[in-house]
């Protein structure tokens, strides 16, 4: 188990493995996206209260789910980087930051689009919206810190510390923001307890969540691979690889 993990931490091995996995993951993501979109937009019933606009949920909820999951993954990678000094973990953390910010932005935009027909306004200062906005600020702060630091190693470590501080703070921020009475509905899917949502809506939602997660994985693997090529450009295997590509292009 451990030898397998340490092997995976080697950039070259990771690069090869990721390259082999990306097409499969991408294919699966596209298939699930098509199925989920079809089931969500055509095959599932409109909501008895919200009508057709409930279908925004099939994009909004996966995006919001990922925005938080990615932050946790980023913080975990930051911890792995700081504790075990795995350089690959820093590359993961860096890639997660930008992708996570995109998903957070997507969740905010789809939330606003959903809020307009439902609540009659694009934006309300409700607990979940506000914590999502703060999450975006946390992502952007991390990205800004990394960009401000010229030295790559220092930037990696500094943003790792910031990610860990952020992950400790997220629950505090979340619960303090909930202090206000909220317009947003409560969580629909909980792992304990029976879901409050009908199966006809739950299945496309779950498919979309898995599909979005796969899209994230593909994006992060591609970005980490780019990062590997850039940071390891002094090594012979990267030179060889790029040299091969260059000669193929000619």
């Amino acid at each position, binding site marked *: 188990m451990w030898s397998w993990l340490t092997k995976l931490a080697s950039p070259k091995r990771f690069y090869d493995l990721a390259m082999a996995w990306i097409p499969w993951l991408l294919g699966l993501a596209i298939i699930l996206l098509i199925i989920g979109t079809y089931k969500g937009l055509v095959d599932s019933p409109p909501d008895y209260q919200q009508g057709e606009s409930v279908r925004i949920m099939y994009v909004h909820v996966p995006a919001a789910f990922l925005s938080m999951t990615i932050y946790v993954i980023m913080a975990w990678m930051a911890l792995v980087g700081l504790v075990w000094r795995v350089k690959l973990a820093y590359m993961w953390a860096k890639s997660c930051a930008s992708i996570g910010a995109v998903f957070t932005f997507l969740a905010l935009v789809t939330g606003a689009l959903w809020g307009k027909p439902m609540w009659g306004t694009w934006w309300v200062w409700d607990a979940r919206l506000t914590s999502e906005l703060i999450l975006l600020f946390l992502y*952007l702060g991390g990205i*800004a810190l990394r960009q*401000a630091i010229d030295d790559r190693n220092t930037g990696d470590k*500094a943003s790792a*510390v*910031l990610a860990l501080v952020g992950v400790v*703070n997220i629950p505090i*921020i979340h619960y303090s*923001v909930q202090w206000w009475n909220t317009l947003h509905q409560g969580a629909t899917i909980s792992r304990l307890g029976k879901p409050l949502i009908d199966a006809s809506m739950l299945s496309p939602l779950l498919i979309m969540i898995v599909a979005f997660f796969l899209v994230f994985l593909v994006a992060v693997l591609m970005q980490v691979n780019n990062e590997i090529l850039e940071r390891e450009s002094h090594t012979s295997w990267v030179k060889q690889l790029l040299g091969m590509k260059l000669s193929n292009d000619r």
Partner: protein
Amino acid sequence: MMQAFLSIFKRDILLAFRHRSELANPMLFFVLVISLFPLALGPYPEILQQVAPGVIWVAALLATLLSLERLFREDFMDGSLEQMLLSHHSTVSLVLAKILAHWCITGLPLLIIAPLLALFLGLPSFSWGGLLASLALGTPILSFVGAIGVALTLGLHRGGILLSLLVLPLYIPVLIFGTGVVDAARMQLPFSGQLLLLAAMLVLAMTLTPLATVMALRISVA
């Protein structure tokens, strides 16, 4: 260890008192920002009283933010910070001393001047207790959490705006509960719940943030 803690604490306080004008600046800023609001919103006591908790707390947040940089910057510039990190004393206790001294210099004056500002904004005198208690528990949290941000942006040019980007989102819980206390006090409602939450956050910040700050300092100074 206690001796090192005390000597750093005394040194920072002494240094601050040698620059008296710098000592007064955060307080002056606090008063100035707050006196802008009646000018912007109009001199109506009902409106001012209603926005007073938020205005005071936002001003306290900004005043702390502006004074944060001097927590480590000068020591970083003249190299004494490096010596502290290299010394055989526990770095966490040294950082703790610096943060506490910083709070005494920048946070405590806000508390002293706060009743005057409450008067400006027409907060009834029975709410002053809540205001002072919330500031007493809340502003140290701002110093503790802010220290991490300062430590992370230490070596950077133009770190100031970046510092606010990093730190302000983390200040939001303090802002919510701080204004919550003052708002409840203003309406003569019980506010011990919010106050206890602020106290809990202070304990958490006091125990955890020095560790993160030391780590960030080691990264920035190395």
